[in-house]
C-alpha cells in the first residue's frame, strides 16, 4: 500500500505540492488527471524518492520513503516508473536494456535475466526486437520497452508519468493497450495521464489535481459523470 500524507514539495520558491494526501491499495489502479503544472508528475517522482519532499510523509508498504535510513535503491526495486520522455539506454540493445538492472542490481545470471527479459518483452509485444538498438524503435516501441524494463524487476507498484504524451497520435493506442493489459492482470498502478477515455476505462479511482492539491477524487463514474466540484467539471469539459 502506498500512503501519501499531507505531502508538500517545492522547487525553490515555487510550491508544487501543497499538502497532498492519497492512499493506493494493493491491486488498485489510480489515475491522476489535471492541468499542466498542477504537480501530478512531481508526485510520482516523490513516491520513489527521486525527489525530496519538504513536508508530510510517504510510506510504501510501511517503509517511510524520505527517512534518511531508508535504502532507496532497495525500495525502488519494487516501484517501477516509466517517464514521459524516452529514456532508453542508447548504447545497449533492447534485450540488454531490460536485463541490465536484473543483472547488476539483483545479481542474476545472464541466462536468468535473459529469460525474464524475453518474457517481459514478449508481454509488451517486442519479442522480435530483442537485438535491435533503441534508436531503431518507434516512440511507442521505446515506451513499451521502458515498461518491460521496469517490469523485469518484478515491481509491486508501477508509476506511469504521462507515458503517451510525447507520442505521435497513432502510437498512443499500442502503449495504452499495454497499460490496460497490466491493469487487467492486477498490477497496482498510478497513472498520470491526459487520456480521459483511458482513465475512465481502467481506473478504480480518478484523482483530479488542481494547483498542487487533490481537488476531487472518486470512482470514474463519480468524477466523469457527476463531479461535485465545478472546477472538475470545467476541466473535463475542456479536455473532451
Amino acid at each position, binding site marked *: 500500500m502506498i500512503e501519501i500524507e499531507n505531502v508538500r514539495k517545492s522547487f525553490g520558491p515555487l510550491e508544487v505540492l501543497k499538502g497532498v494526501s492519497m492512499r493506493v491499495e494493493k491491486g488498485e489502479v489510480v489515475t491522476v488527471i489535471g492541468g499542466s503544472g498542477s504537480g501530478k508528475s512531481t508526485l510520482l517522482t516523490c513516491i520513489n524518492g*527521486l525527489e525530496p519532499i519538504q513536508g508530510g510523509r510517504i510510506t510504501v508498504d510501511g517503509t517511510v520513503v524520505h527517512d534518511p535510513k531508508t535504502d532507496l535503491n*532497495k525500495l*525502488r526495486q519494487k516501484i*517501477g516508473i516509466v517517464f514521459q520522455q524516452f*529514456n532508453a*539506454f*542508447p*548504447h545497449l540493445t533492447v534485450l540488454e536494456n531490460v536485463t541490465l*538492472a536484473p543483472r547488476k*542490481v539483483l545479481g542474476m545470471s545472464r541466462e536468468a535475466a535473459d529469460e525474464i527479459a524475453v518474457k517481459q518483452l514478449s508481454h509488451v509485444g517486442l519479442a522480435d526486437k530483442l537485438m535491435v538498438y533503441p534508436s531503431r524503435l518507434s516512440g511507442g516501441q521505446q515506451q513499451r520497452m521502458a515498461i518491460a524494463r521496469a517490469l523485469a524487476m518484478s515491481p509491486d507498484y508501477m508509476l506511469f508519468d504521462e507515458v503517451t504524451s510525447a507520442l505521435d497520435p497513432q502510437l498512443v493506442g499500442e502503449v495504452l493497450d499495454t497499460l490496460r493489459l497490466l491493469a487487467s492482470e492486477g498490477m497496482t498502478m498510478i497513472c498520470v495521464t491526459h487520456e480521459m477515455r483511458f482513465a475512465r476505462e481502467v481506473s478504480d479511482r480518478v484523482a483530479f489535481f488542481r494547483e498542487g492539491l487533490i481537488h476531487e477524487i472518486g470512482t470514474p463514474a463519480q468524477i466523469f459523470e457527476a463531479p461535485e466540484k465545478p472546477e472538475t467539471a470545467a476541466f473535463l469539459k475542456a479536455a473532451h
Partner: protein
Amino acid sequence: MFDTALTLKDLIFLAKGAGITLAITAVAVLFGTLLGTIFGAFKAQASALAAAPLTFVLDVLRSVPLLIQLILANAFQSIAGFGWSPFTVACVMLSLYTSAYCAEIVRGGIEAVPAVTRRAARSLGMTWAQDMANVTLPMALRVALPGWIGLTLGVMKDTALVLWLGIIELLRSSQILVTRLQEPLFILMITGAIYFLISFPIARMGGRLEARWREND
C-alpha cells in the same frame, strides 16, 4: 637517389627515441585518463564549492606551460630528495597534465547524458556507481571520444618537451642526428613521418569507433 650519410644504425637510434615517446605517452594517457575520469565525474556531480579546490589545481595544470611544470617538478623532486629518474618525473607530470584536460572532457560527456536517462537508471534500483559504470559513462564516452583522441595526439606531441629533462625521446634523437650529420631537412622529414605513423592509427581507431557507434544511433 639521394645522397645521405644516414645509416640503418641511425634509423634504429630514431626508432628507440620513438619507443621512449610512445612509452611516456602510453603511461601519461593511461593514468591521465583514469585520474581525469575520476576528477571529471566528481566535478560533474559535486557542487561548484566542493569542487573548487580540485578545479583550482586542474586550472593551474592547464594554464602553466608544460615546460615550466616539468622543469619545476624535476627541480623540486630533487630538492625534496625523491630521487626520481627524469623518466618518472616526465610520466608523473604528463599524467597530471593529461588528467586536467581529460577531466573537462569527461565532465562535458557526463553532462551531455540526459537527466531523465539517469533517473531511469536510478529508478530501477541502481546505485550511483552502478548508474555511472553501466549507463552514464558508456553514454558519455560517445560524446567524449573525439575530444579524448585529440588529447591523446596532443599529449604524444607534447612529450617532446621532456627532452629538457635530458630524456632522449624521438625529437631529441633527431636533433642529435641533425647535429652530427648536418642534414636537418631530411632528418626532420623522417622524424615527422615517424610522428605521423604513431598518430595515424590512434586517429583512425577513433574514427572507426565513432562510425560503429553511429550505426546504432
